[in-house]
């Protein structure tokens, strides 16, 4: 039965989440995104597609990821019980691989023979290079030249995996420019190329299909919670750059009214300075194929995001988050670079887990939230990536030379 009042049936048939989303692409790409939508509808209805996806997630990615109660962090904060969805234990070290598995299966289904992707910190690039190696497809990853310099270990990983990494020097040479360059590649290689977008943004159907592939996080967590403690959590917390790990956790819970949700944006140096909090500091506009909250000036020129976490410094956010903010279903907050660094160290010290700087933002928000809640309440946090990639930048920020 379809729930008439469900919040889980978005987007509409034009790919809109309320006023957000849509397909704002050049005419050359329009037939391609329509084609992708048609093929995705077929795949979604095909049990064989799901079977292959599930099989790869289990045996290649290592799912289901554990649900872990964090006793010492809970004790330290002195309030609600804190549980982690351990997506940092996935193959390649982050949630990004879930989506890449789904999209490469779609690409193969559509007969595409060449894969392109954009990447910021390099996690999505590594995940894409990984699935391309696994399926033997050539892979080109666009990465801002600034990020290539900042993220040398991930660049090397991608090359080891057989991908070609193209440094993008146009614009500000960061993630948004890498996405522009990937779109330029796609428009020039329409026949053979599949663009694996890394976050739940871009033209329809990308926000929907990325969300669907990432929803494995929330589906597993919901079932694990029910089986472990016999009830749903009170609050879900996840960090947000483009918003794929958070929408993946949140979406399966949207119709559970008792479950509150908190998305954590990157406040960088502070919301009155340089930051990457599109919802807190931006307003609706059109970029990269969708209408959503964007950091921009009064003329609609895009402003670069800043965050200590290269995975969060995107000036936009997935359109479903913009919609969930406007209808009030999800609360959004932000934490600064400094707070995220404190969250990072807190988790290292209390639980023996080195998180990526992205979920360190979620931990920083939990640090403020947990003490305000009762001890019988439950916070579920998405630990969406591990911190190996970040130890160099964390050391630099802490004034330690390695």
């Amino acid at each position: 039965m379809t729930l008439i009042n469900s919040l889980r049936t978005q987007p509409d048939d034009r790919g809109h989440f309320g006023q957000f989303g849509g397909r704002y692409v050049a005419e050359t790409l329009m037939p391609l995104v329509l084609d992708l939508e048609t093929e995705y509808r077929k795949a979604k209805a095909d049990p064989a597609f799901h079977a292959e996806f599930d099989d790869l997630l289990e045996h290649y990615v290592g799912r289901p990821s554990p649900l872990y109660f964090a006793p010492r962090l809970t004790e330290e904060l002195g309030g609600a019980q804190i549980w982690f969805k351990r997506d940092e234990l996935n193959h390649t070290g982050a949630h990004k691989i879930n989506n890449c598995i789904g999209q490469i299966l779609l690409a193969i289904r559509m007969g595409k023979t060449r894969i392109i992707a954009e990447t910021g910190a390099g996690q999505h690039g590594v995940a894409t290079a990984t699935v391309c190696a696994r399926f033997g497809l050539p892979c080109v990853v666009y990465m801002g030249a600034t990020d290539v310099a900042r993220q040398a270990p991930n660049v090397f990983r991608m090359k080891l995996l057989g991908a070609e990494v193209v440094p993008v020097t146009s614009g500000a040479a960061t993630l948004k420019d890498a996405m522009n360059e990937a779109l330029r590649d796609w428009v020039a290689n329409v026949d053979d190329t599949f663009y694996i977008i890394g976050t739940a943004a871009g033209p329809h159907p990308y926000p929907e299909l990325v969300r669907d592939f990432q929803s494995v996080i929330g589906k597993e967590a919901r079932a694990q919670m029910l089986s472990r403690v016999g009830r749903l959590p009170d609050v879900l917390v996840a960090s947000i750059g483009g918003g794929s790990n958070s929408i993946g956790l949140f979406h399966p819970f949207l119709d559970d009214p008792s479950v509150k949700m908190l998305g954590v944006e990157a406040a960088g140096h502070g919301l009155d300075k340089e930051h990457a909090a599109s919802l807190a500091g931006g307003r609706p506009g059109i970029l990269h194929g969708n209408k959503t909250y964007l950091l921009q000036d009064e003329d609609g020129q895009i402003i670069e995001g800043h965050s200590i976490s290269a995975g969060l410094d995107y000036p936009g956010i997935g359109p479903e988050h913009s919609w969930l903010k406007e209808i009030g279903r999800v609360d959004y907050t932000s934490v600064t670079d400094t707070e995220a660094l404190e969250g990072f160290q807190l988790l290292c010290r209390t639980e023996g887990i080195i998180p990526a700087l992205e979920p360190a933002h979620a931990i920083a928000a939990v640090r403020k939230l947990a003490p305000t809640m009762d001890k019988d309440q439950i916070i579920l946090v998405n630990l969406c990536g591990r911190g190996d990639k970040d130890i160099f930048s964390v050391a630099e920020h802490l004034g330690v030379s390695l």
Partner: protein
Amino acid sequence: MSRFASAFRPDHSALVCFVTGGDPTPDATPAILDALVEGGADVVELGMPFTDPMADGPAIQRANLRSLGAGTKTADIFAIATGFRARHPNVPLVLMGYANPMTIRGADWFAAECTKAGVDGVICVDIPPEEDPELGPALRAEGISLIRLATPTTDAARLPAVLDGSSGFLYYVSVAGITGLQQAAQASIEDAVARLKAATNIPVAVGFGVRTPEQAAEIAKVADGVVVGSAIIDIVATEGANAPAKVRDFVRSLRTAMDHAREKTA
């Protein structure tokens, strides 16, 4: 007769010239636009700069950055348009750019500003027919032409949707790709123009990758118009203060070659 109707006449192929507004500075643009007209441009496309021009090649990307780096604002673009209209009452003026700068203050605001500035048409790269409500109704209400793009991937099933609500002219993007790089084979252009002209009465102009008088002349034999952009932008980029004179000479060379090509086939 509308300005577009006088520009796209049966006796010649219209020369449509693009430059990015505010490149290298807002003050420099009027003289460059005048040079386009003096050289023989029939339609002027004024690019609205954007931080993220994802359909453009390196030449126009850099022009956008030069313009924004010089501090060009949307208000400057409309001031440039208003001045152009005063100096050239009969030359069609088209604003070309991306959705966000056009819609950020609301489509109604944008359409009203276009009317005030004497703009005849608008090309918005990233609003396809599927998202027409974002801009199309506001432009049509003001009598501003919405000029759509057709591409090699626009198949017969899709073409009616592209034509629905289009006016002024149809811009055929001759290659699947970004501006200013490779050019399509003449045969494929001829086939495409024939296909488009069978489906619509509005003029068909062909662009993307047209860089030389010879290429323009070949296309002029079959199309109602030829669009040249990156090659002019390159002159602006390299010539500095001398740009207007060089732009005028280059545009004149395009115009002359196109006229000769038509005479030979006539």
